[in-house]
């Protein structure tokens, strides 16, 4: 018996832990929410093409863990599955690194490349290399004013300035007098353009506010601070869905009368629009950007088509999502594709 004593002493806590774990699992399930309550539903699928297998690279300037880019990628993946395309996705927010990733795609001798032009100058060389190698290149998301200069075949996206202008006009309709435009990434050109667009058409005052986008508590208290200093602010314009949701909390906490509008959607944001926490969102349909970029390369290879005739960009935004149309969009957003 003695021989086994030390072993049983070790065993006892383990048995206790296992028992505790079993009890925990049995007794602690949540009666609401959670995976079990999640509605089923498959992602969009449109059958599958019988054309020969081709390879397409999608190279973006996505920074890690951004919900927006995740939706772009999902659109691209669905198009790839439908078109019998092997999709190579890569991303780097650093322009030099992004160019290297494009070079990598050229080296792999892909059949088509889709890129974003957040920093067009850095992409110039690799784009001409791709063309020299006979690889068609299309643009998406950013670079609406640059894609033709670089000789890209087509472009899918929204003009950030135009989107900002549309939001500014909408603020006029809502009778807003003073807005604050919250930039979550200081120095990001696209974000600056959105705020500049708002400034152009909005008849009231608009001020930019930089916040630290990687730290949500900091975003919240900075917006709260801004609202407290200036009680005249009646609209907070956020440039991304997660920041809009945080801005709504700041409005609550500061006791301000401001309303929240935003660019871009995600699945929580549509719920917030339904509830009235957020007034409206400007949607540039990221899913469509990813989808069309891949689909267009398939069309070009198999039928020689190009959208926009190679002259005009294909605009995916700005479309407004508000209380009037949120119901139809909500079920797609719940799947993380809008």
């Amino acid at each position, binding site marked *: 018996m003695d021989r086994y004593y030390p072993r049983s002493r070790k065993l006892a806590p383990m048995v206790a832990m296992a028992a505790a774990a079993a009890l*925990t*699992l049995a007794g*602690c*399930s*949540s*009666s*609401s*929410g*959670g*995976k*079990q*309550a*999640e509605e089923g539903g498959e992602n969009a699928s449109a059958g599958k093409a019988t054309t020969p297998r081709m390879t397409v690279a999608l190279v973006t300037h996505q*920074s*890690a*863990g*951004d*919900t927006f*880019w*995740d939706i772009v990628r999902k659109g691209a993946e669905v198009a790839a599955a439908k078109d019998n395309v092997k999709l190579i996705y890569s991303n780097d927010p650093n322009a030099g690194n992004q160019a290297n990733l494009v070079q990598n795609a050229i080296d792999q001798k892909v059949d088509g490349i889709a890129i974003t032009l957040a920093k067009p100058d850095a992409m110039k060389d690799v784009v001409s290399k791709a063309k020299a190698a006979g690889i068609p290149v299309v643009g998406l998301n950013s670079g609406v004013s640059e894609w033709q200069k670089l000789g890209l075949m087509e472009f899918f996206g929204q003009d950030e300035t135009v989107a900002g202008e549309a939001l500014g006009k909408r603020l006029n309709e809502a009778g807003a007098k003073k807005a604050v435009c919250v*930039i979550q990434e*200081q120095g990001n050109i696209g974000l600056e353009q959105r705020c500049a667009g708002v400034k152009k058409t909005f008849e009231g005052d608009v*001020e*930019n*506010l*930089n916040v*630290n986008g*990687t*730290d*949500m*508590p*900091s975003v*919240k*208290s*900075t917006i*709260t*601070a*801004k609202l*407290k*200093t*200036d009680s005249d602010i009646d609209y907070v314009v956020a440039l991304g869905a*997660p920041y809009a*949701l*945080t801005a709504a*909390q700041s409005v609550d*906490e*500061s*006791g301000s009368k401001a309303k929240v509008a935003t660019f871009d959607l*995600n*699945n*929580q944001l549509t*719920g917030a629009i339904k509830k009235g926490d957020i007034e409206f969102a400007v949607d540039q349909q990221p899913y469509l950007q990813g989808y069309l970029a891949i689909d267009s390369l398939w069309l070009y290879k198999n039928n020689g088509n190009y959208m926009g005739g190679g002259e005009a960009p294909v605009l995916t935004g700005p479309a407004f999502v508000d209380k009037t149309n949120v119901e139809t969009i909500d079920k797609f957003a719940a799947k*993380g594709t809008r």
Partner: protein
Amino acid sequence: MTQQAEPAVTSPPAPGPGKESDGRTQQRPLALRLLARPEVGVFLGAVAVLIFFLITAPAVRDGSSMANILYQSSTIGIMALPVALLMIGGEFDLSAGVAVITSALTASMTAYQLSMNVWVGVIVALIVSLAIGLFNGWLLVKTGLPSFLVTLGTFLILQGVNLAVTKLITDNVATDDISNMDGFDQAKAVFASSFDVGGVQVKVTVVWWLVFAAIATWVLLRTKYGNWIFAVGGNQGSARAVGVPVTFTKISLFMLVGFGAWFVGMHQLFSFNTVQSGEGVGQELIYIAAAVIGGCLLTGGAGSAIGPVFGAFMFGMVQQGIVYAGWNPDWFKAFLGVMLLGAVLINLWVQRTATRR
């Protein structure tokens, strides 16, 4: 209270001021001895910054503005405390920023995917956070590699795991909303509620921050474990020679950082309902900066727990003060940097003046 918390390698700090007049060292004036304490420089710096913003930004004088500044400070400060203790122990942790998000993601996904009471997720997240600290400390002690390399490794691992696992499990890069699940309201009350003080809403994190700071101060100055921390940070070899459990101390300090990451992670989860997997990068430097401004040496062996409280306060004050003052937002980060450097220099100058013979 004038006793300096010196790195006690061969003997613990003397229990009272009586020992200082043994004739070998000259008694210095009280004011100078006060100034030589590591937290006095940062205290003066924080007061200077506070006064500066009280004058330039009228909105700061409002009670609710101060509550907001304290909230911002507390989310930095709760992490700055264990980070400071770790630095006094001679190490630092680059993975602290993303570890916060790892913890929040773990809790959220465990609860949601298994449809469990959210407290199950909270406990699992605590275990995971402590395990990350254990891994950091264990690897450091076993290999003798500098903490820069070890924690840089964990930083990158966690950053990748945060993204990849979240995407794998939820098919999104952010977690699902858990706000309608059982236990959420209780957990929110603990980690992310607020209460009324004379018409001003104060966040509960502010209370936790000050409670943790008080505990850390007591541990550091009044317990054997506190002495061990100073000893391993001062001179590891001598510490080991006099019987300080170096391995235990270092590993437990890393686990303490894990605990802090868990706490702040839970706050973020229960105050925002979902977590984006890419957040947290860069926050580790802010925690380290708050600790350094608070008088903790990058080389270890010196510092206090109250210093980082003022360090974090200064950070929150500057960050929000710029907004309250309504300055051009383009200069936001530059202002922050200048104010912080200024504070560190004041800190340094005060220390040098005070310790000059």
